[in-house]
């Protein structure tokens, strides 16, 4: 899922800088100083964050934004008021690329504005970004404190190794005297990745099955609806507990798959309903009448009007996956290794941290982190709603 080998290293920085040169130079040529600089920084940053995976796409986006600032479609034949015979409709490929780049740039700018416009949504966005960066950069900045400490960190007169926050250990020490902060930084990544995977699997299953049920109808529809009703009748979390004890999770991706298998019915029903309603739209009927073919109808007519719904559902699935995942670990039903936020809560509770005031920080840290992450996701959907509103793209 995240295949960045060059995350947060000097080589990543170099990749970012090289990538950033392109928008920078384009910007300087077009005399768009500010966009050029922002483009350079964006490339630098995403190169640093994700290596080539981040740097290369950012070149295109940043360059497009830079171009969009100075692009004037002086040769757009549609802006001409001349008669049809005097207008040249042919367009060189350079012009075409330029035009498309600028439209991509404008979309990006509009998207950025949409992201910022909704206050709650923007807070959510910042929260999501915070957790993303914490799990991506954090591990290379803070070393993992995995070894149990015994008496070297124990305060005189204390009975346990737990410690509240101090200057040296901002989040305190856990039951083995280990730095809680390092566990926080190293323990979130897998949790978040598994949750995202589960969310993606759920969405893929639900969208495909929902589309099949909605578009084909008849027997597949009845089967799928029956299956989803069946799954929804079984109490989800207990079932998960039972399943978790049957399946051995040597790899977390299996857990993600299992979560997806249980989570798809709700979304599938919603997708089915959406497809059914979109299928009846006049513009879909027009496309059928124009014989544009099923692929066109699905990809160009139906999907663009569902994408916002799908992405928001994805976010909610991720949220649900965090819930179930931590819940399972919390009950000790899946043997995940440290570092892991869920394991921290589990071990903390096992070691009696619940009722020791000085141990609170060991429990509070993962608890608050999970709460904040969930909250950020919910808030972020507000921005996504604005982001995918087709009206926005025209609001330039």
């Amino acid at each position: 899922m995240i295949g960045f080998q060059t995350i947060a290293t000097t080589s990543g920085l170099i990749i970012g800088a090289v990538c950033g040169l392109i928008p920078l130079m384009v910007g300087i040529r077009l005399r768009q100083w500010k966009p050029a600089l922002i483009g350079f920084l964006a490339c630098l940053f995403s190169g640093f964050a994700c290596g080539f995976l981040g740097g290369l796409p950012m070149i295109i986006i940043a360059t497009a934004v830079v171009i969009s600032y100075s692009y004037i479609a002086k040769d757009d034949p549609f802006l001409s008021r001349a008669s049809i015979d005097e207008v040249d409709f042919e367009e060189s490929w350079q012009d075409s690329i330029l035009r498309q780049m600028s439209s991509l740039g404008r979309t990006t700018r509009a998207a950025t504005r949409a992201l910022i416009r909704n206050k709650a949504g923007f807070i959510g966005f910042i929260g999501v970004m915070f957790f993303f960066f914490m799990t991506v950069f954090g591990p290379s900045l803070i070393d993992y404190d995995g070894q149990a400490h015994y008496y070297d960190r124990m305060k005189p007169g204390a009975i346990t190794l737990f410690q509240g926050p101090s200057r040296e250990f901002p989040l305190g020490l856990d039951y083995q005297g280990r730095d809680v902060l390092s566990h926080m930084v190293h323990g979130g990544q897998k949790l978040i990745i598994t949750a995202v995977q589960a969310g993606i699997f759920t969405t893929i299953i639900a969208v495909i099955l929902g589309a099949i049920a909605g578009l084909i109808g008849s027997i597949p529809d009845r089967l799928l609806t029956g299956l989803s009703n069946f799954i929804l009748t079984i109490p989800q979390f207990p079932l998960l507990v039972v399943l978790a004890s049957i399946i051995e999770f040597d790899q977390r991706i299996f857990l993600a798959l299992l979560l997806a298998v249980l989570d798809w019915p709700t979304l599938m029903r919603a997708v089915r309903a959406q497809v059914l309603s979109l299928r009846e739209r006049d513009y879909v009927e027009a496309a059928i009448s124009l014989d544009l073919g099923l692929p066109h109808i699905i990809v160009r007519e139906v999907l663009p009007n569902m994408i916002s719904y799908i992405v928001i559902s994805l976010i909610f699935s991720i949220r649900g996956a965090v819930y179930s995942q931590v819940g399972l670990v919390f009950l000790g039903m899946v043997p995940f290794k440290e570092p892991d936020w869920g394991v921290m809560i589990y071990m903390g509770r096992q070691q009696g941290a619940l009722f020791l005031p000085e141990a609170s920080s060991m429990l509070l840290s993962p608890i608050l982190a999970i709460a904040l992450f969930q909250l950020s996701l919910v808030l972020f959907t507000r921005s996504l709603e604005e982001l995918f509103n087709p009206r926005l793209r025209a609001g330039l």
Partner: protein
Amino acid sequence: MMQASHPPQAPSTLSQKLVRALTGYTARTLLQGLLTIWAVITFTFILIRKMPGNPVDIKVEQLMISQNLSYQDAYNRAAGMFDFDPDAPLLEQYLDYMWKLIRGDLGRSITSSGTPVLDQILRYLPWTLFSVGVGLFISFTVGIFLGMAMAYWRGSLFDNVMTAFSSVLFGIPNYITALLIILILGVQLEWFNVGEMLGGVDQDVKAGFNYDYLRSVMKHAFLPVLTYVSATVGGWMLTMKSSTISTLGEEYVTVAHARGLGRWRILTAYVGRNAMLPLVTRLAISIGFVVGGSVIIESIFLYPGLGKLLLQAIGSRDYTTMQGVFLVISVAVVASNMLADMMYGFLDPRIHVSGDR
């Protein structure tokens, strides 16, 4: 082209409506429900037997450790304790179980020295029903009123504060809320002594309809109920707000104002009733999940509910008890879905209880 001009129909009385509801449609739904329940039983039956280890093995392990017996001795003791043959073929076990079930026998608990599963469920169920039920009731009522108020004064400071508040509540998982309540309210702020409030009731009070007992029950239910309320009230508030906003935009509300109706009458009969319709279905469906309780919350507060029973049964591989709990929950879910349909048909005269939805 298919303007739904409803077939002319004499307005019906309440009893006629009930009679209509109880014929045709109900028969079909009941059959469907039974089928679903059967599928759930079968599915969970297979699943449960596929879990690694069986009750005998686990007991053997326990005995070997606690009483220092050899494997053979422990096995003999354990096998004698349970009315269960782990080596019987799955199909035979299944048919046996189903046959008993048809006669209303849920079997006996494998691990709790032969207590009938039904007795066990009946002992744990009231706690769950009480705590989750009260929680649901409080959070639904509070959510409805606050949601309506938020919609009515939308854009005001009250609305903004409450929207942020409900988003926060909605965003945090319930067990996280439970832990936060213990950690912050209990341990850090010391508002109450959490240790005393765990479990279902104080040991030293006698069960019965007296002040001490009820007080003790209330005290112990307080934390789970608080958790349930704070974990769900945000969702109700937000849903009710958006439902009310769309109802406020309906023309019949404007017409009601034009007719000079009092504000209170409009708010209840015109706005409230219509805005609540979609929520009622969801409430009915939630009632089904009341029965299941919450495995995690009950285990955090050591609350003697069905969720805790299930968790114990899973831990000791008590097949019959697990099976029984799953059955009870599924029946409740199916029943509440039917209830949702019927309630909707009852509250919304546009929908005839005829299954044409």
